[in-house]
């Protein structure tokens, strides 16, 4: 009597669904990935001055050399010694251009009230940056 031997099947790992699994994982990572790019207004602050006698130089600048943009607590802007008023971004652009036309090396000093909103300062600095102004000074009162 013949005893039938069982044929041994070749051992294989099924790989046909591998790409399905991989694509599922890709979709998950694509959906959850968020490229956190930092964007903003870049400035370089002046160095802190140590108050030592004879080392600190005081400089007096005239209106022809420096424009003061003073932001009040309620968001109004004083240009040099003018009365404070609400200045929209478009008007601010015109004003900056006018000042630059008067003096190419005009320094803009942004003086923000401690009670003023941070966004008001950013708005003014943004308009100055948009006008390619490099000499910007930040201070508070």
């Amino acid at each position: 009597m013949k005893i039938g031997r069982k044929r041994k099947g070749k051992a294989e790992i099924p790989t046909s669904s591998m790409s399905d699994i991989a694509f599922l994982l890709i979709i998950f990572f694509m959906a959850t990935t968020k490229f956190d790019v930092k964007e903003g207004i870049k400035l370089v602050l002046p160095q802190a001055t140590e108050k030592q006698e004879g080392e600190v130089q005081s400089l007096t600048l005239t209106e022809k050399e420096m424009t003061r943009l003073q932001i009040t607590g309620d968001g109004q802007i004083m240009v040099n010694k003018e009365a404070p008023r609400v200045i929209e971004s478009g008007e601010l652009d015109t004003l900056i251009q006018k000042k630059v036309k008067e003096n190419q090396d005009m320094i803009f000093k942004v003086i923000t009230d401690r009670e003023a909103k941070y966004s008001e300062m950013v708005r003014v600095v943004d308009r100055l940056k948009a006008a390619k102004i490099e000499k910007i000074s930040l201070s508070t009162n």
Partner: protein
Amino acid sequence: MAIIKTKKNREAVIPTSSMSDIAFLLLLFFMVSTVFVQEKKFWVERERWPIAESIERIPRNHTTTIYVMRDETILIDDVPTRIESAEDVFVSTTLVRKKTDDPDLVVCFRTDRETKYGVMSDVMRQLQDANTLVVAFETQQRKD
């Protein structure tokens, strides 16, 4: 008469054997580039940032972020602090350490647009004390 042989139409097959290799390559890319941002207790949402037009991209590799909330809480290195007097120098001391580790440090501010400028001024003074002079105010891009 010669017999004209008809060409057998072969079945069109798209090779899919390398599909999983491509998929895994893409998978590896996303796995490596993904950073899971954990929501912090103190978080200034993007919608709360000020809006600006003339913004520039800031390379991430030399940056540290300071969060300034509307209630004047400052968050640096996940540690909340406040500046109420001249003795509150946590920001300054932290930045001195960071500046030693990375001389090209850029300090990015993620500040709520409603925050009063006074607190920002105090923080910037401490930045000057720590000699970390390059700052960036993170803003949303104006959409119009």
